[in-house]
């Protein structure tokens, strides 16, 4: 087992997903299966291989420093599940 139940808890916390005990069990098992499968990659010698994060070799894609119209406040807030005046509203932030 690569991932323990504690790992599953920690990952779920990082990903802000509240899982039930049952889900933790199930996802833990499935993640272990998948991770066992991806172990395959360890067969390869990748010592001198550069990683690919972009397949198309573009560089310096820049825009001029020009102000463009913003959304109206109404448009910006139109999709908000909860708002107060011109603000988005959330339950109190606790660190």
């Amino acid at each position, binding site marked *: 087992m690569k991932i323990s139940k504690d790992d599953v808890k920690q990952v779920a916390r990082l990903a802000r997903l509240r899982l039930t005990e049952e889900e933790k069990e199930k996802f833990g098992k499935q993640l272990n299966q998948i991770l066992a499968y991806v172990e395959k990659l360890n067969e390869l010698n990748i010592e001198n291989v550069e990683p690919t994060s972009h397949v198309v070799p573009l*560089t310096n894609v*820049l825009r001029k420093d020009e102000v463009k119209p913003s959304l109206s*406040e109404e448009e910006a807030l139109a999709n908000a599940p909860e708002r107060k005046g011109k603000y988005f509203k*959330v339950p109190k*932030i606790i660190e």
Partner: protein
Amino acid sequence: MQYETVIGLEVHAGLSTNSKIFCGCSTKFGASPNSQTCPVCLGLPGVLPVLNEAAVEDAIKVALALNCQVSPYSKFDRKNYYYPDLPKNYQISQNYLPVAFKGYLDVPLEKGTKRVGIDNIHLEEDAGKNIHGGGADAGESLVDLNRAGIPLIEIVTQPDMRSLEEVEKFMISLRDILLYLGVCDCCMEEGSLRFEANISLRLEGESRLGNRVEMKNLNSFKMVSKALQHEMRRQGEVLKEGGHIKAETRLWDEEKEVTSTMRSKEEAHDYRYFPEPDLSPLIIKDNWIDRVRKAMPELPRERKLRFSREYKIPEYDAQVLIADKYLADFYEDTVKLFPEAKMVSNWVMGELLRGLKERNINIEECLLPATHFANMLNMIKKGAISGRIAKDVFAEMLDTGKEAEEIVKEKGWSQMSDEDEVSRIADEIIEKNPQSVRDFQGGKEKALGFFIGQVMKVTRGKANPQLVNKLLKEKLGKLK
């Protein structure tokens, strides 16, 4: 046992570009909440960032001014963490290959200079603002995303600072460079310049670093100083009692003037950095750097040379003046109106700096405009007030911001230039001091000084000294 303090800073500077770093929304401060947002900076599903060229150029300028190497190849990464003011719940930043690295800043101190190393400079986007209290009720927080996406540079120093003075002078020097470059308005109240400090203590002579504490929520130069001072004391006490410093993040509480634990190292975020797939790498070639370099404005070290050259003031004066941009600006503004450069520098370095120190304020907090200052110097020159009276007038000006003329009028301090009045007083004093008259007649030139002093005393310093001198010489000469 002596402890040595080791301090490093992380400085976030909001760049003064017109538009945000990855979209065209305006960066103007103070707009109505969420009115400067668009799908991109709101992080709506499907949007993509496009990098603002001016932000890159500003970063290059700062890199050059801080003697950094500009990375020929840099990249953006995602820093993943959840917070309501971060619409995408990741911040686009530069973790693996920042835009510039390995520089230094030479900071002028009271005695000598201190070289503070710069580890790296990277570009990133700012977050929005959460509001607790104020318009928000208990149990809720409000979010304004106008600031989300404003370009920031983060300047990370080496842990090279060893005292509060070094930190304070570094902050001023760095702020000045940003101001000279025009890349940041450095308005700490509006959050365009923010500091985080890390501090650790170690035994003198020890080469290993102690566990470091990161300090957040430092919203002014003074808060940085106070918080560090507090933290130095706290850590010192813990160590002296044989305790152990925990590596953690602490928040400065400005009201209570204490620091408290925000999160321990174990609770530290796992930011899961990885290369931002939506942005291409940045390749900065020498010709681009040269172009930026040529367009750079004057920096403190150049200004110092110019001051010595242009105003013919001693190098020492120039050094003191340029140590604070606002002070140097004040000096130049004054000299433009009152071109006796050395007299101005004497006053700035003497009365002005002393006055600021006594009042515990910075030059930019000071009420005195350069025009008022120049007018006052002019009054001295024209003989309307004496140099001695001027010092009192100046103190009053610092406190009230009023014009010298107004103060002189109010207080009745104008210089006595009425020849008849001064003559009458001189006659009285000569009459009352026959022995001194004899001394003078006996060739004791010093006795003249006594008479001048007496006249000034009687007139409470208001008599025009040149006039007093002239009249006394005449009168005493006649008595011979």
